[in-house]
């Protein structure tokens, strides 16, 4: 069953949310994540936590050394993501996804996601409060957001 994310309608509906303020974390992104250490992770989802203040999902990522490690991925607040079209079951265990994000400063296998390419190739923004959070869309299959690198005005 495809994720219940109404992306086909949502390309149009994304524009309804363009006025919305850039996603704001409950915390300072920069104290925990390093936006200069961007990672692109491909793997299978093993767990999903649809919770405040951030949703988390976990994925098994095959490293260059052929070893698999389980990464924790932080995305935005579910309240904000829900209004952007995410649903609690948008990500399912077993889904093959690609995540572009910023790695944790402490070097753990933990990242703050900018975009997520879903199992069917569609891309959704992950509600980051870090750089990349002002993007309004991301490219299918690659996950590339359309505006990143610039510091959000609030900084």
């Amino acid at each position, binding site marked *: 069953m495809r994720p219940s994310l*109404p992306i086909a309608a949502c390309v149009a509906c994304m524009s309804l949310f363009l006025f919305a303020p850039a996603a*704001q974390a*409950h*915390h300072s992104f920069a*104290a925990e994540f390093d936006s200069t250490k961007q990672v692109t992770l491909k793997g299978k989802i093993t767990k999903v936590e649809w919770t405040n203040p*951030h949703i988390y999902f976990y994925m098994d990522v095959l490293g260059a050394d052929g070893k698999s490690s389980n990464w924790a991925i932080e995305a935005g607040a579910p309240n904000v993501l829900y209004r952007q079209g995410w649903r609690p079951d948008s990500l399912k265990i077993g889904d093959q996804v690609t995540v572009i994000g910023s790695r*944790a400063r402490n070097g753990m296998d933990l990242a703050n996601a900018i975009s997520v390419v879903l199992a069917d190739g569609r891309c959704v923004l992950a509600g980051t409060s870090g750089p990349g959070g002002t993007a309004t869309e991301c490219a299918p299959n690659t996950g590339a957001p359309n505006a990143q690198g610039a510091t959000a005005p609030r900084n």
Partner: protein
Amino acid sequence: MIAVVAALAASPPAYAQWEGYPTPGIPRLPDGKPNLSAPLPRTPDGKPDLSGIWQSTRGAFNIAIGLKPGETVPFNAKGKAIFDERRDTNSKDDPSARCLPTGIPVRNQLNTPMKIIQIPGLTVFLYESRTTYRQILTDGRPLPKVDWPAWAGFSIGRWEGDTFVVETAGFNGKAWLDQAGHPSTSDLRLTERFTRRDFGHMDMEITIDDPNVYSRPWTIYGQFVLKADTELLEFICEENERDSQFMVGK
């Protein structure tokens, strides 16, 4: 919005958590959308009715974005030292990162909505963020004597023409005014001014007066848009807070 509702209807229920449920009794355009330019509603005593769900037009990680162009935050030496330390450590010690309350200025400028309920003698702000509330007493009482200060202080409100003026004091000084780290102490006094322009738009000014950390009062400005056909969602910050343990700073 119709396309989104139609897409959601394909996977039942159509109005999950009341998202999309039509708000009763609001002015609408011929196409059914809320008429945000309609005249503002008034209570029987002729005052503007601020009741409704409001969304700040921007989230303010740093409330200085609300200053008038060319103005800067008037830190005194102590205030600057505190702010600089918080910025140098990327706000790693922000109490709100641990789900403790945010300061009022940033709380009014989040990317989650708030609901104002205005009844005789009392105006209530329900903040979706962290599922918190503030009470603003409008029954004519003065600010209270305080021997047990609070994170959000104690608020009274009155009308100056069509502007709702809120005075707040009795803060415990623990909250940061924003996530960037603008400081406040227990001597903080806030004055908020809310002016609803029409059905769908409201302006806000906040004057921050804390002589321990700022050399003079300073004012920031913000705006809200009314959100109809929606409802506040729950937001329990404590249910899965994982960041504070990893906020190493730099």
